[in-house]
């Protein structure tokens, strides 16, 4: 009898713990509602697993005229492990809500949802995508910053002037999924290993196989796959099973 009681109480405690985790973020008292929710900034960032993203996520709730609504409730949600601070808030005087977010423990893409309710209580959702880099992709991103970015990134900063405009054949930025997704891992590996000329591409892309290790190049490819836009879908066996 006593045992059953102990078992029961453990179960109820566990259930209590679970239900508290699953609870909706504290309910807000919205003073207004909008008809649309749009992203102002902070989407499509490249972060690291578990780390807070550099830029906060800012979304705006608009009325029928497209201007910001003050006092509308916005709720953020994402898959397990994503932390929003705050997870729910009322829009400010310009109709915006700003939240800092940390991505979860797994690398890859995170589709996050920001939602608000319209006058009839119906949910309006906005999907925002962020990217988390794991160990291999982080290594790739470091190597990219050291070796590739000067030619493959059109953006210049004071510390790093882009060389892209100086090249007759423009290199593909690594985010250019339309082109790079069509190339297999083996293609990318061959180009990085042997240079552009070996694959009938621009000879200005030098061969890296004598400078970078095999695992370095695998890391670079995993980084290129991680940041591709539109997202890269692995082909073959794995894809067929989804």
């Amino acid at each position, binding site marked *: 009898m006593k045992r059953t009681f102990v078992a029961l109480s453990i179960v109820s405690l566990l259930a209590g713990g679970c239900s508290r985790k699953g609870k909706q973020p504290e309910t807000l008292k919205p003073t207004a509602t909008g008809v649309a929710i749009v992203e102002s900034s902070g989407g499509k960032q490249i972060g690291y697993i*578990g780390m807070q993203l550099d830029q906060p996520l800012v979304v705006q709730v608009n009325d029928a005229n497209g201007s910001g609504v003050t006092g509308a409730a916005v709720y953020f949600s994402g898959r397990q492990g994503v932390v929003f601070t705050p997870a729910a808030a009322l829009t400010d005087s310009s109709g915006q809500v700003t939240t800092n977010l940390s991505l979860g*423990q797994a690398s890859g893409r995170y589709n996050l949802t920001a939602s608000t309710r319209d006058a009839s209580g119906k949910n309006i959702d906005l999907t925002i995508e962020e990217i988390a880099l794991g160990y291999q992709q982080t290594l790739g991103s470091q190597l990219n910053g050291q070796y590739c970015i000067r030619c493959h990134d059109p953006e210049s900063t004071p510390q790093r002037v882009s060389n892209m405009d100086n*090249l007759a054949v423009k290199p593909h930025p690594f985010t250019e999924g339309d082109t790079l997704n069509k190339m297999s891992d083996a293609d990318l590996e061959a180009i990085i290993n042997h240079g552009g000329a070996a694959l009938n591409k621009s000879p200005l892309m030098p061969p890296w196989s004598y400078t970078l290790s095999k695992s370095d190049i695998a890391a670079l490819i995993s980084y290129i796959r991680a940041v591709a836009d539109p997202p890269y879908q692995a082909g073959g066996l794995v894809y067929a099973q989804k």
Partner: protein
Amino acid sequence: MKNRLTEIWRLFFGDSARAFGSASVMLLVLLAIAPGKDHFSQWHRYQKQYLRLVRGRADAVTLERHFQPGIQQIWLPEQQVTDRCMTCHLGLKEATLADVSAVAFRKHPVIPHSLTEFGCTTCHRGQGAATTVQEAHNATEQWEQPLLPAKYIEAGCGQCHLENLTGTPFLNQGREIISRYGCTRCHTIRRPDGTSILPDRDPPSLAHIADKTSREWVYAWIKDPQAYASTASMPNYHLSDDDARDISAFIMVQSTPMQPPLQPVKAEGQADVAAGTTLYGQSFCASCHAMQNAAGMVAGGTLGPELTGIGTKAKPGWLQDWVANPYHYDPNTTMPRYRFDAKQVATLVGFLESKIATDFVANVHLDPATPQQIEHGRRLVLENGCASCHEINGVTKPENFAPELTRIGSKPLSQLIFVEGMNRTLPDYVAAKVGNPRIFGPSLKMPQFKLTPQQIDAVTTALLAQTDRAFTQPPTMRITSVQQSKYEPAGHAGQLMKDLRCFSCHMTNGQGGNMAPDLSYEGTAVQREWLVEFLKNPETLRPALIRRMPKFNLSDTEINTLTDYILTVYQTSAFDRDSIPASDLTPAMADEGRDLFYSKFGCQGCHIADYRSDKGYIGPALAGMGKRFNAAWVYHWLKDPQALRPGTIEPNQHVTDEEARAVTAFLMSLKSAGTKQEAK
């Protein structure tokens, strides 16, 4: 009631047959408990789930063949690893399970280590021998090391890898911040290889502070250093007005005049701010010092302090003395002594004095200090450990002012005091201490450093790497930190190089700064005439570089001394710099080399050989190279750049001997530097 019990007793144990039957059933039940527990155990459920998952997949046969039932264990006695994690995490080694949504069964991300050789808890922590989810992942009463959150996972790497790794940016950043902000001036942090993390720069001495600045400035500065310069590394002590008043009083009272006294350099006439701006630019002060520009952006280097409000901070006489000869005030500064004449000093100081931090000291009005206030200031200076970082007359540097952090990554939770509402985990505690120390109580001494959330996580990562395991595992697991050599150049040239602080930016033989190229083999690389010209008037070798070598206004004798030393001492032993004489390189080879340069190797992608046609922005411009380099250096560089300068981004293109010779002939034929103007 008693009757009923007797009845039940009789029912089961009334006669010997009944008693035997009941006892047998009870025995059977008892015997079934052990296998039953096993069957209903958590890990058994996970194994069944895993089998259900893999059976739905195309490669089910392979995956099922790999599956082994029962408790799986990695046992590495030397590394104190007994990990049963793979009992539930069954897909860790299965390449095709990279995409499954259940984290428990997903393939482990690619890492450079084999899971069976290193185990799981070596990096991830947690209780390896446990067979329930709760005990394995979380802290329990008997086990205080829960699983490390993913964002601090690089702390796992840092236990063995004491040097920086490319793949661990946050660990590297955290260690850098610990050195940069001088955490180890108060907290000792020893490393498993016997070294300690050391601060990378010395905060200024306050022994002669009254010569440099005013008490009002000191008062405003210690109240809020970042209000003066957003990039300041001094932390905020959240001092009250009275405390700041008394500390500033004490520090000024303790200051003694410089011996020999300051020698301000005066020049006649009005300060010309425009000329000063030009001189500031020409001298490349911005390579080390940041300044807020017209757009409000802080731009420039971080080696020296930000100069946005220097006119408010430094007294004109001190600035003149400093610009003329920084070693007079601070013999250990990283700032080089420029050979400025009196007029240049006055021009530059005029410009610096025009850089005023508006409002910084505008509202500070301090009455002369009373002896009580000064005494109170002295007590505060002792209590806050100011002398841990700054030299202050009459105050000795405290030893072990703050707790040692050598094994902070394994500190038991029972020794930590948490604040209400905080997650009771070690990483959360460390991050809170780093990011916001005063929430643990207003009377705590640790000041508030200005760090971004990402920097706080980086420092936490570096601290969490300081575990018991890092110290107790076999020394063969350790990749020790690179030791800085004690090399110092000797003789006259050594004196001169010290005077010019060459090694604030350049590195030789593994010692020095990392802002400018490594000079270890410079003597093999360059020709004497070129080096003389370069030292007279350093030009930009890389078109897109913003941090540049300043012009020091050296005398001919000084240049000769430096050149002789560099050419004699900074040599590689791999080859002789004169091994390829000019006569070996024919015009025909140069033509062939030109073709190889532009077609096969595509060098113009990164380099400029001819300003009229080439645009490459990444490597140094090669026009005029024939006058700069020795042919043997160029040849060996082409063969294997990383051998001559580890880490250079020039790719090794596996050039054959003939090709290397031809390209060398072409490059050595580029005698005329040419300019961008000519190109236009």
